[in-house]
Every structure is written in structure tokens, then in C-alpha cells.
């Protein structure tokens, strides 16, 4: 068990290292002169250029540059925005909470609803609802998340005027206390709904197929032959066996979820890192983009390692392997 955790931990560290290396290579290989971007097109003062080179560390050798950036990143310093001249850390920090809120709420909801519907359809295979939900989930799987978000805005808000579509709070009202919480919750509905709909099909499919698969296993037939009640067989034996692939799925979906959150934040003007990504793209603010990429990758890696460890606790077969 300890060895398993250590192994997973090491591969997590390796992942972060790799992300950093890729980042560095891309920036170095990119066409164009970064100094030009900073200075603007009009000025071309050699003294200024020299000073800027010094400031951004571009006059050092490539390995030196790599090392200084890497050690800074290790210390948690992601550099400075070339547009706002602010610390990237600060820029991401003030936005991260909104993203994490949206991400956690929607991933947990998708996990629960997708799994529940999958279980329901597995137990009512061939029923009308099974057919309907399977078709819907196939279609949702093919849907661009941002498009679904736009359509929900058109349907639920523009036409029916039901829910707020932009931002995280009502800027005009400036609520306090419990009213503030309710306001955020109301603004959370549409972005969450979109994300849940987009990520749910994965859980739905995996829950349905693994329930069906476990139900046809010999040990379930044996248990039925013992006269044990169907409820007990399902609650204890089918469920615990069939839930394992869902746990794995949760890890795999994370990367997909992070992408989805970014796009959905842009659709709903949610004040998180997704919006920051958009502005950074438009202004070609590379340190910010790299910072976001690094933060996202590290978060995904950390959660995935945690998910794997949780899996090892649930499945006795893993604990002793390797």
C-alpha cells in the first residue's frame, strides 16, 4: 500500500515536471520576439531593450533561464504578467475561488446524478426511460459545452426570463450575508446545469455498463441462489463492485472538466480563471496563460493521485499489487 501511494505520488511529481518542461519548450520555440511585444511596436531603443532583457532574464543561457524559472515555480512564483505588470500568482489567486466553487459543485452533482441515472437504467434495461436517457446521453456527449450553455441562456433566460446568466453576483444589488449566498447560488444554477449535463454522460454510461456487467457475474448468481433478497444483493454486493469504475472515471473526467469549466465561465461571464484565460489569450499575455496551464495541470495531477489512493482503499486487489 505504501509503495503504491509512493509510486502514484512520484508519477504525479513527474507529471508536473513534464508540464513545466513542455511549457518552457513551447515558449522558447514560439516565433516572434517577446521583447517587441512588451515594448510595443513603435519604440526600438537598444538601452530599453537591454534593460528589459535583464529584467525578464532573457540574456542568460537557456539552461540558466530554465533553472531560474523552474526554481521560481517551485517556490510558487509564476512570474509577472507582461500586460498588467502584476504577479501572475495574485491574478490567478483572486479568481481561483470562483472556479473551484463551480468545478466542485458541478463535478459532484454530475457524479451523483449520472451514476444514479445509470443505475436506474441498468435495473430497468430496455424500458422507455432507459432508451430515452441513453439517447439523450449520446447526444449530450456530442455537444460542445459552450453551445449548450448559450442555448440554455436563450431558452431559460432570454425567452422565459428565469435565471441570471451573467456573473457570480448581482452587481447592482450588493447583497450581504445570507442574501449574498443565495444570490451566488442563483447565479450558479445555469453554469452548473450546463457542466453537469456535459459531464454526466460519462458517469451514466460507466455506471450502467458496470452494473450490468457485475449483475451477470457468477457470484451474483450464487448469491441469488442463496435466497438473499435482491435489495441486499444490490446494495451490498453489486453496488460496491460496480462503483469502482466510476471512481476511475472521476479521475479521468477531471481534465475534461477543467476544459469545460473554462469555456463555461466565458459563456456565463463567471469571474474565474476561465475569463482570465480569455483575456490573456486576447492580449497574448503568455506568463498568465502559462501560469494557468501550470496551476490547472498541478490541480488535476493532485486530485488524480488522491482519486487513485481512494481507489486503492476501495479495491483490495490493488493494495497488494506491486
Amino acid at each position, binding site marked *: 500500500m505504501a509503495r503504491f501511494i509512493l509510486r502514484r505520488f512520484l508519477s504525479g511529481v513527474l507529471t508536473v515536471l513534464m508540464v513545466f518542461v513542455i511549457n518552457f519548450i513551447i515558449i522558447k520555440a514560439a516565433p516572434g520576439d517577446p521583447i517587441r511585444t512588451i515594448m510595443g511596436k513603435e519604440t526600438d531603443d537598444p538601452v530599453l531593450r537591454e534593460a528589459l532583457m535583464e529584467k525578464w532574464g532573457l540574456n542568460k543561457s537557456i539552461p540558466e533561464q530554465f533553472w531560474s524559472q523552474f526554481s521560481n515555480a517551485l517556490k510558487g512564483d509564476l512570474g509577472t504578467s507582461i500586460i498588467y505588470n502584476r504577479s501572475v500568482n495574485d491574478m490567478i489567486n483572486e479568481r481561483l475561488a470562483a472556479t473551484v466553487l463551480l468545478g466542485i459543485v458541478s463535478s459532484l452533482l454530475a457524479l451523483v446524478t449520472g451514476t444514479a441515472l445509470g443505475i436506474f437504467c441498468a435495473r430497468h434495461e430496455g424500458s422507455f426511460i432507459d432508451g430515452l436517457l441513453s439517447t439523450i446521453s449520446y447526444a449530450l456527449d456530442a455537444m460542445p459545452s459552450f453551445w449548450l450553455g448559450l442555448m440554455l441562456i436563450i431558452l431559460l433566460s432570454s425567452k422565459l426570463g428565469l435565471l441570471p446568466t451573467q456573473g457570480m453576483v448581482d452587481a447592482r444589488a450588493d447583497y450581504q450575508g445570507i442574501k449574498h449566498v443565495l444570490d451566488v447560488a442563483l447565479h450558479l444554477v445555469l453554469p452548473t446545469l450546463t457542466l453537469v449535463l456535459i459531464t454526466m454522460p460519462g458517469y451514466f454510461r460507466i455506471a450502467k455498463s458496470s452494473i450490468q456487467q457485475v449483475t451477470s457475474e457468477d457470484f451474483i448468481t450464487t448469491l441469488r441462489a442463496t435466497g438473499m433478497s435482491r435489495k441486499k444483493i444490490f446494495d451490498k454486493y453489486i453496488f460496491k463492485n460496480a462503483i469502482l469504475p466510476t471512481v476511475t472515471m472521476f479521475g479521468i473526467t477531471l481534465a475534461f472538466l477543467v*476544459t469545460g469549466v473554462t469555456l463555461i465561465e466565458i459563456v456565463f461571464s463567471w469571474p474565474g480563471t476561465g475569463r482570465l484565460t480569455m483575456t490573456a*489569450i486576447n492580449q497574448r499575455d503568455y506568463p498568465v496563460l502559462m501560469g494557468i496551464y501550470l496551476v490547472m495541470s498541478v490541480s488535476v495531477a493532485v486530485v488524480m493521485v488522491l482519486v487513485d489512493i481512494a481507489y486503492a482503499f476501495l479495491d483490495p486487489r490493488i493494495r497488494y499489487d506491486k
Partner: protein
Amino acid sequence: MLKKIANKCIRAFMADRQLRIGVIGIVCLLLIIIFAPTIATHDPYSFDFKRLLAPGVGGHILGTNHLGQDVFSMLVYGVGTSLKVAVISAFISGALGVIIGGVSGYIGGVTDTIISEIINIFLMIPTFFLILLIISLFGNSIVNVMIVIGVTTWPGNAKLMRAQALSLRERTFVQSAVALGETKPQILFKYILPNGIFPVVANTTRGMAGAILTEAALSFLGLGDPNIISWGQMIYQGKQYTTSAWWISAFSGIAVIITVIFFYMLGDGLNHVFNPKYNYGRSK
């Protein structure tokens, strides 16, 4: 061998509904590309003063956008962009995956350990941000988009191919080729790759669907190629007009969904064909 596969494909085509829908759907899309000038009711590149016309108004079946372009005709011309992105990026991804995975699985040892670790890492990190970063740095031409999607999505294919190579390596016909003194590259290209490629082919069609969605997402972030017509960009343009002209985003999104579903169906159907355990019309 080939004849057997062809026979099986024909039988599967008749028996498997998903494969049938997928193949017919994609053939239809190809026909739309070929006959685009005939099918389109207007020139999608012509700007007009008739802006933001609702569907059906003034002979515009699906309305016009903010520049007065005919939405239906843009959709028709957009098929080509989507399919081009799908096929080329999936081909790059498939080729890289097959070669890297095949080499890794066949050679084994330290090479395999390193490559499979890299594959696992790539499967873990959010690829979309990587694509985003590269496109915004290297420029957002459609060629770049296709190459970058291909280059960043190979690990899934490589993983499949590696597993195939690992099992094929132990098979008798490969062992006898080794005994007959054929060189490693010969064995790799003559036996391992051709025999192990089928699951990758099926996966690649899913990759095509993924590429279409990724291109759309990039366009939505303003990183699409401004010189071409793409459904993703139409959704992006329509975003500003969700209240006044919902049809711009709505119809282009539906076009994406239908195309992606065709590729999914094709992929699922191919999986059924290549999976020896899958039998049609099970009796028990």
C-alpha cells in the same frame, strides 16, 4: 485476410445499425462538400445589408448573421472545414500513436517503461490548455490547429497500439518471423503494425469527433482561423446576438452535434466489427 475483413465489414454493415448510420451520414457529408456550390442558396462570402434576418425571411432558410451572410450557406461550406480538421488531425494523431505505441510495445524494456510513463502523463494533463497555449503563440491558422490537435492527442492511440503490440509480440507468426531472421523494423512494419492497427482505427474515428469539438472550442475562444468558414466561429459570432439572433449559434451548434454523432456511430460500429466477442443478435 483482406477479403475476410471485407466480408465481415459488409455483414456488419448490414447487421449493425450504428455502423450503417455512421457510414451513410459521413457519405452524405462528403456529398455536401462536393456539391456545396449547388446546395448553398447564397454565396456564404458575400456580405449584405440584410443583417440579422430571422430564418425564412427574404429567402434565407436559416436567416443571416450580423454581416448579412446566409447562415444556411455558411453551414454547407462549413462541412468541409470540420471534416478537414477531423481527418487530418486524427490521421496525424493515429500515425504518431501507432508508431510510438508499436515501437514501445514491441521493443519493450526501458524504452517501453519511459514511453508508457510519458503516455500516462499526457493522458492525465488537460490537453486543451496545451493546445490553447500553442495556438495563441504560434498563430491561429487552420493548418496550425490541425497539426496541434494531432500532435497533442496521440497518447490515447499509442496506449491502444502498445497493448496490441505487447500481445502480438508473443504470437506464433511473429515468433516464427523472428526465428527466420527478419529484422526488428521488418517485423514491426510487416506484422505488428498491420495486425494491431484495427482498434486504433476505431478509436481514431472518436478522435475525429474530438477534433471537431476542439476546433469549435478554439474558435469559440477567438482562436479560430478568421479566413475560413467554421461552425465553431459561427457559434462564437452568434454569442453576441443570443437575444436578438439566436439562430446563428443554434444552427451551427446543431451541425456540429450531428457531425460528431456520425463519427461516434462510425467508431462504435467499427468497434463492434473489430471485436471478435461481439456477435449480432445474440440468442441466449
